[in-house]
């Protein structure tokens, strides 16, 4: 409130009206507004009012800096674009000029004036009103200091797929501790299930397992597999995470990973997880041979011992006595500074589309099942065969867009299926020489080397039919061989309906968010989009951060993408985290809510309303308290408090009321002579 002269109420306010090229100046008479402010707002403390073409440019900013010093300004008003865009810029300029950055206020005369009307007189009048409002408000501003929080140097990475692995290695190699939590018995994620990866046709395991092994051996990475996050509390730099390590029934300090227990186990079950229902595993098992860590896990629900009390073959045969049948879940608490969520995706359930025959017709397989089939360590040792397990197909139909690009299932495109389907076409041709048909709507081969891959597949003589398949029926009903399949489709390029007999059908099923993505998001305080993927802070300019400071996302958890993109995002998230850690301390926006304890009646209405769980109740003092660092300044509690006991720093009642008074003090009559342009 006091000016630099020490006199109460006397301010020295500088007003800057930006042309923004022609964005503002094309509609608002910026010269008039500046002149008006200089003359009519002098009594409010305005000592100078200037206009400039681009206030956000370095020259424009320098204008503010120089004026603060030379003219001894104690408040600054910039009438320009939206604060969302340049509030930081002008606050930075003010700071460099020696003024507390929170004493700088913006009036949005672009988004709220020049971009919503073409009536020049009206626009100029409104701009004047908004400048007046900003000036009245900024007089009520107090200098504020950002809240500084220390950043714990440990990081939690949730999800041990390729994105999580990449992020963990980046951070660990920088010298900081990482906790990698993975819900399956081994890291590797979906990539470990694949056979070859496009476009290079690298063997997935060959490029993944060295990374997995590096993670397993890294001194800075603590691997917590067969574990899940139970609870998260805290704020940027200071998260307390509770992790449940599920009972493995194997003592990992003794286990050598020899695999005898798995060999001797008599109980064989269908492996729904890793083998996608196409192969078998034992009740005590490692998901695949190259699993990291190498320790097996006992599936309690399918174990004879837990069912009937007999067997215990694993215990009998274990040379080092590592089987621990009385194992319990262990709950541990971790303190970390940042979290990276790389939880991956689930596949679309092909049973939802009965007309493609999945589940009814034996020789219809999904893409993931086919990956397992092609994989040399899979249920058929890499042989491409029909459901009988031995006959190779003579013709294969590959159907694109199953469950994607369809308003009845998932409206989005799953990004990877076209390339995956072309890859399958290549593999089938290479290993069986069968006739291959790809049924597509559009061929999406957009990234580096992808279209070259498409050309290669074309060379091999794959039949490409542009048409979304209508149905797959059993040829046995139609004079074909029993078990053969008929694909009915409109070949749109020749505008004819075709019925094509094939031996085997592959469905390129789409990617979906994890079935529990919404609850995981809620747990970590981030949000999900309409289609269920984690929401990034900005889809173009900030794809790995979220609206919650300190929580980052990477990989397919944020939306369908291929392996190079997932790896890039893993590295990007890691880089952000490392930058935070290296700064050791970060500042948070001081725009926060605070409760006046004397006015608080203890009604606790605010406690449940806070979306960030920042308000707690002190039982002794019988008042509510806001945790400064958790509060994001949304203002919900400020509005809700019946006693008016909560104020928002930076949005006090005085400030807002002053703004309204300033707005209304300028008379203008909005009789629209032209319709408002939107």
């Amino acid at each position, binding site marked *: 409130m006091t000016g630099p002269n020490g006199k109460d109420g006397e301010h020295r306010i500088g007003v800057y009206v930006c042309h923004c090229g022609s964005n503002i100046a094309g509609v608002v008479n910026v010269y008039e507004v500046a002149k008006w402010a200089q003359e009519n707002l002098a009594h409010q403390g305005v000592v100078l009012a200037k206009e400039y073409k681009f206030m956000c440019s370095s020259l424009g900013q320098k204008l503010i800096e120089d004026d603060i010093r030379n003219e001894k300004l104690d408040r600054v008003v910039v009438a320009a674009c939206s604060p969302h865009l340049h509030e930081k810029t002008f606050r930075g300029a003010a700071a460099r000029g020696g003024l507390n950055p929170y004493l700088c206020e913006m009036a949005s005369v672009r988004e709220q004036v020049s971009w919503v009307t073409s009536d020049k007189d009206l626009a100029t009048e409104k701009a004047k009103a908004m400048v007046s409002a900003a000036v009245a408000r900024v007089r009520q501003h107090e200098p504020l200091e950002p809240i500084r929080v220390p950043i714990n140097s440990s990081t939690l990475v949730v999800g041990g797929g390729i994105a999580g692995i990449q992020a963990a290695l980046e951070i660990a190699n920088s010298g900081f501790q990482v906790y990698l939590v993975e819900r399956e018995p081994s890291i590797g994620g979906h990539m470990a299930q694949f056979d070859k990866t496009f476009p290079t046709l690298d063997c997935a395991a060959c490029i993944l397992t060295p990374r997995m092994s590096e993670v397993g051996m890294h001194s800075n990475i603590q691997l917590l597999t067969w574990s899940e996050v139970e609870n998260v509390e805290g704020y940027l730099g200071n998260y307390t995470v509770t992790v449940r390590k599920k009972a493995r029934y194997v003592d990992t300090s003794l286990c050598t990973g020899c695999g005898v227990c798995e060999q001797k186990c008599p109980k064989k079950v*269908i492996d*729904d997880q890793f083998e996608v*229902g*196409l*192969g*078998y595993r034992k009740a005590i098992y490692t998901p695949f041979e190259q699993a990291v860590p190498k320790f097996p896990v006992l599936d309690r629900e399918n174990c004879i011992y837990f069912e009937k009390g007999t067997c215990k073959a694993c215990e009998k045969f274990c040379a080092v006595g590592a089987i621990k049948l009385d194992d319990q879940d262990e709950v541990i608490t971790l303190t970390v500074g940042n979290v990276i969520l790389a939880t991956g995706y689930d596949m679309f359930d*092909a*049973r939802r*589309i*009965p*007309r493609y025959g*999945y*589940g*009814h017709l*034996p020789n219809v397989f999904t893409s993931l099942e086919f990956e397992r*089939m092609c994989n040399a360590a899979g*249920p*058929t040792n890499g042989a491409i*065969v*029909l*459901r*009988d*397990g*031995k006959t190779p197909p003579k013709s294969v139909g590959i159907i694109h867009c199953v469950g994607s690009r369809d308003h009845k299932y998932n409206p989005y495109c799953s990004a990877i299926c076209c390339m995956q389907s072309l890859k399958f076409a290549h593999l089938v041709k290479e290993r069986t020489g069968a006739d291959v048909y790809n049924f597509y709507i559009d061929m999406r081969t957009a990234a580096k080397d992808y279209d070259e891959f498409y050309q290669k597949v074309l060379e091999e003589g794959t039949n490409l039919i542009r048409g979304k398949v209508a149905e797959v*029926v*059993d040829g*046995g*009903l*139609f004079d074909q061989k*029993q*078990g053969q399949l008929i694909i009915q489709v409109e070949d749109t390029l020749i505008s004819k309906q075709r019925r094509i007999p094939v031996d085997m059908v592959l469905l390129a099923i789409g990617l979906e968010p994890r079935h529990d993505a919404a609850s995981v998001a809620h747990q970590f305080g981030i949000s999900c989009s309409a289609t269920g993927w984690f929401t990034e802070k900005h889809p173009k300019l900030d794809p790995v951060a979220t609206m919650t400071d300190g929580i980052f996302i990477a990989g397919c958890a944020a939306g369908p993408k291929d392996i190079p993109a997932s790896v890039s995002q893993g590295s990007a998230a890691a880089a952000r985290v490392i930058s935070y850690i290296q700064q050791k301390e970060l500042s948070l926006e001081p725009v926060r809510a605070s409760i006046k304890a004397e006015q608080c009646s203890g009604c606790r209405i605010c406690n449940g309303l806070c979306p960030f769980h920042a308000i707690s109740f002190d039982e002794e003092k019988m008042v509510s308290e806001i945790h400064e660092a958790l509060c994001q300044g949304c203002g919900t509690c400020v509005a809700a408090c019946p006693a008016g006991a909560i104020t928002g720093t930076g949005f006090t009642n005085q400030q807002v009321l002053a703004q309204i008074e300033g707005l209304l003090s300028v008379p203008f009559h909005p009789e629209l002579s032209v319709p408002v342009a939107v």
Partner: protein
Amino acid sequence: MKYLFYPGCSLHSTSSAYLDSLYAIQEKLGFEFAEVEDWNCCGANEYVALHRIPAYALIARNLALAEQQQNGAQTLVAACSACYLNLAKTAKYMGTDKELNARVNDALAAGGMHYTPGSVEVRHILDLMCNKLGACKVKKLVERPLTGLRVAPYYGCMVLRPDPDKRWRDPESPTALEDLILATGAELVEFPLRTHCCSGHMPQINTETSMELIRRLVEGAVKSGADLLITTCPLCQLNIDGYQHEMNKYFKTNYAMPILFFTQLIGLAFGLSPESLGVGKEITSAAPALARIGVKVETEPAAHKRPPKEQGLPMPRMPEIYGEDL
């Protein structure tokens, strides 16, 4: 339960068996159908091909009559799939499209009538039996289980699609007739073409296509191992039954696949006489198939073999969806 009933033109002539059997079983099911007084033809798929507002007005007259005629709940039940869809679509569109509603009611007013959208609920008899009554209730009323009879369901199109009132969970994978077949004690034969089109009115327009579509259904049913098909639609029954001989001549085949209405099958399971249900009115006789009712016979292996389950790769897990609430 009292219902208003819209028979439609077919039930009074080509599909009189459907009407006979429906009336024969209604009492046992606890239904009481009252025919809409002086109902007129719904126009099938023919009238709406030529006109728009007049077509809706033609159908809306029936809705208006139903609105006036009270009989317990204001639910109008139709047995013919096309009639049902016409009535349901009109009722729905008049509710959502204000302009259509205004014009149609203006036309109705010329005849001194009016239909208030939302005042009549339109349902198909299959929907009523499965979703309102429930297959389990039907099972309890069965007196003579049709053990040993292999029955395949055939829905046709319009009862399941486009499903304007969202009565069915999954139009491509229905369970209604399957549940009813199991309720009667008959052996359910899974028929993959059960929702495929019978060719509708194509026999009058293009012989080649209609014969092919009919052949696919008949051949498919034979290869699936069924003794008998059951259906919900008069036109489906007419095409598969009436045209089967011509189809056989066209393709030089020798199939004899009888097709009855599902209400006839239920009636037989209720112990009613075949004559009272209109059994015998079908051209491709069901007598040989029905000769197996109540007689213990060794089930011959189905013509359509499934690959042996124990060898090779496991099949995906599929939920048991038929007979869920029996």
